[in-house]
């Protein structure tokens, strides 16, 4: 299958850009200017796809949800108001799609199987500043972290991924997930504790 590597630079969406997300979306909604949509898509395709992949642990499902979310953006573009953050809108749609997906699956609080972690290609270059041993250990730790994220309860995984992939603050995560900030704080605390515990255990082994 022909696949396109999601640009990791898209995570920096929300930082300095010539045109804000909201202005791009407003332009697309008002005039149908597809170049504006393309820009938004390229800004967020990486972070959104990672959010969905690491949430579901199933690439096919994540791809399907990914497509659903972007098509929903296209369909409901007229309802978009520039006063609302585009990023928040995008991840709210994604979160709602995930909730629907889990409901269909009957897994309201299921623990998802460990996500697939793409094996590093044999010729992947190590960071220049790291020794081969340290680079290998870093990749190993990162892979272990992804596995541990897949074992988190759904709500904790959701809060963690929204924080790391969406770059949202507590209040924004609370708004997206429809719970109070204290609940989000608690979920994040539990998630971090479990991840830390799992990584230290693998470290010690």
């Amino acid at each position: 299958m022909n696949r396109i590597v999601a640009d990791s630079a898209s995570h920096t969406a929300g930082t300095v850009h010539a045109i804000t997300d909201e202005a791009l979306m407003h332009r697309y909604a008002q005039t149908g200017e597809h170049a504006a949509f393309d820009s938004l898509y390229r800004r967020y395709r990486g972070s959104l796809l990672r959010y969905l992949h690491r949430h579901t642990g199933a690439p096919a499902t994540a791809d399907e949800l990914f497509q659903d979310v972007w098509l929903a953006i296209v369909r409901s573009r007229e309802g978009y108001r520039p006063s609302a953050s585009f990023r928040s809108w995008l991840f709210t749609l994604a979160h709602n799609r995930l909730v629907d997906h889990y409901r269909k699956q009957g897994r309201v609080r299921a623990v998802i199987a460990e996500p697939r972690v793409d094996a590093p290609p044999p010729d992947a270059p190590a960071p220049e500043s790291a020794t081969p041993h340290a680079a290998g250990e870093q990749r190993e730790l990162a892979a272990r972290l992804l596995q541990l994220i897949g074992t988190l309860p759904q709500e904790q995984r959701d809060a963690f991924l929204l924080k790391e992939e969406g770059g949202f603050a507590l209040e924004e995560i609370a708004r997206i997930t429809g719970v109070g900030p204290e609940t989000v704080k608690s979920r994040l605390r539990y998630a971090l504790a479990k991840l830390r515990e799992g990584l230290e255990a693998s470290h010690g082994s």
Partner: protein
Amino acid sequence: MDPENRTPLDEATLGALYASTRDETHTPVVDAAIEARILAAARTAPRRRMRAAPWASAAVVVLALGVAWQVVRVAPPERTAPAPFEQSATAEDMAVSRQAPPPPAATSPAAPLPATVPPAAAIARKTTTAARLADEAASSAESAPAFSVGLVAADAPAVAGAAEANASTDPRLDGVRALLREGKREEARVALAALRARETGLVLDAELEALLAAPAEPR
């Protein structure tokens, strides 16, 4: 790794470790077909319809309200009970109707005559034979002016003054005199009675007084 050299796994370290998973090694890839489908949908989505400016919508609403108001005003709904202002108008009309009629023109020539015919006389003119005969008598007199209400009212001051000076020259009586000349005495009497009931300021000479006082002839 030597446990002594480990970095404590605090939140910032975990965050940095997660950030390292965004590199090409761990980043998932987008299916090319899905991406093409998304971008194609964005390009082919129908454009938003142009909306009218808010002021235009407001103008349309105001215009519609104006038209509706005109329609309501021109054709008010039927009411079973009179409105208060109608009741007051009726009372006012009654007060006016109780007022004394204007003095006859014979005693005050300058006083204007009523411009309209009293209702009772008007009804009599339309419904009685006497009125019809009076109209015929008036129309048969060549020298008499048109026997219309409007003309009578307009010419009333001058006619009243002439009647006072010489009753025999009152042109309103010419029709009656013509009937008398033709020998139609009874018709002349009826016409005179109708004329006297309708007109004010008529001065009758002895012949007409006698005609009016004579009993009706059997037909």
